């Protein structure tokens, strides 16, 4: 296929809106498929862990959520950089659409971590380096959302949010390593999350499928949210007005009355 795809075309919200609408069902289907396979492998096929019993099965949710929580922040910073560099409207909308899902996964990761920690370590929370930095990541997400919601002008909100996301992404490695060193200096390595790569292959597959399911879910949800943001911000434009009058059930009646 030598057809050249015109990426710039889809940077226009009016072109992106229908494209996202077409893609969303596919990503939902993939999310459901991967989710069923992953959970089936994880909950039914994978053997019970000889050390951790059945409790370990929470990793099928936990690991994927942790990956996504970090990955989404990087993607958000990527869109932020694109938005600042090329001054595209859609980039800011994508960053705004990604943030709530990032919060969701960070929260799920922390919560499932607590559920796992209680039977394994006997505590809901320990100041482990990874848990602490995940908590700080949650703060960074909250800060991003709070800042963008506090600014009424959407263009300024996008730019300010983009700058904050970039500052955050530069700081994440610094924060991670400082927390790690703090952790090793303050308390002995009484607990370690690393289990090595001795994990059974079937567990790994289950985890990968669950992570893929979350990935597809993220794309589907973010595209849906981006469509909502597009409609809200472009409501004054002609194409949104025609789109809404075409789809809305009440509109034809109103038009008929006008005639």
């Amino acid at each position, binding site marked *: 296929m030598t057809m050249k795809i015109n990426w710039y075309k889809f940077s226009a919200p009016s072109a992106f809106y229908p494209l996202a609408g077409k893609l969303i069902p596919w990503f939902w289907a993939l999310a459901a498929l991967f989710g069923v396979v992953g959970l089936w492998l994880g909950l039914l096929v994978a053997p019970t862990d000889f050390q951790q019993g059945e409790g370990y099965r929470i990793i099928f949710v936990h690991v994927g959520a942790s990956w996504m929580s970090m990955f989404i922040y990087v993607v958000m910073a990527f869109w932020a950089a694109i938005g600042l560099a090329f001054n595209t409207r859609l980039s800011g909308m994508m960053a705004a659409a990604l943030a709530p899902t990032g919060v969701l996964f960070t929260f799920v990761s922390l919560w499932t971590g607590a559920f796992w920690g209680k039977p394994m370590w006997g505590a809901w929370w320990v100041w482990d380096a990874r848990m602490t930095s995940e908590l700080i990541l949650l703060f960074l997400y909250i800060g991003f959302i709070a800042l963008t919601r*506090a*600014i009424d002008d959407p263009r*300024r909100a996008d730019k300010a949010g983009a700058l*904050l996301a*970039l*500052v*955050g992404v530069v*700081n994440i490695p*610094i924060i991670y390593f400082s927390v790690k060193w*703090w952790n090793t200096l303050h308390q002995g390595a009484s607990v370690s999350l690393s289990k090595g790569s001795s994990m059974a292959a079937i567990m790994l597959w289950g985890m990968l499928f669950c992570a893929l399911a979350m990935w597809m879910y993220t794309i589907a949800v973010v595209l849906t949210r981006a469509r909502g943001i597009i409609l809200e911000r472009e409501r004054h434009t002609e194409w949104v007005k025609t789109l809404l009058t075409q789809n809305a059930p009440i509109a034809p009646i109103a038009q008929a009355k006008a005639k």
Partner: protein
Amino acid sequence: MNVILHIIARDLRLALRRPADLASVLFFFIIVASLFPLGVGPETDLLRRLAPGVLWVGALLATMLSLPRMFADDFYDGALEQLALAPYPLGFVVLGKTLAHWLVSGLPLAILAPLLGLQFDLPGDTLLILAGSILLGTPALSGIGAIGAALTLGLRGGGVLLSLLVLPLYIPVLIFGAGAVDASMSGISPNAHLFLLAALTVGGVAFAPWAAAAALKIALE
């Protein structure tokens, strides 16, 4: 270079004409540090153990309190717009303002900290390290804070929002700052912590003003 010095002199003159603002930051630090013994009890061993963290968190919050004023006054009377239009890089202007902010917040806090350290029964060497670490770490706080102050300029609820944005980014400075004091107290060399703190300050003062200048441009649009 002259621009930076000029801005520092101007901001210092403005700050000194309102000495109450300066003093309120210092008294905030004193009050926060005095609340902890009242909260956890007067046992000297416990207080000595808590001192590095408590004093550093207090210094951090005190620095943060004075951040909203960094650009706000100039923003409302229009001076900031004139500075942005001036034929100098806005980053230099922000660097000058950052250093001026440090001179009226970080520097006095570092001078005051050993006095509060005495209340927590810290030994003599540790008092020196405490002052040194605050002296070394607070420029980074002013730098990172400038980004937050610029981003929240003119927003409703700016002060609370500012703390939400800035405090997570302050964590590395807190860790190494309190770590240095902790290390000196337990007889380990605090140099590793102090070097890392210096690295954060160099990085923060070098890069943060440019990010803050970008944020100011967004706010002034």
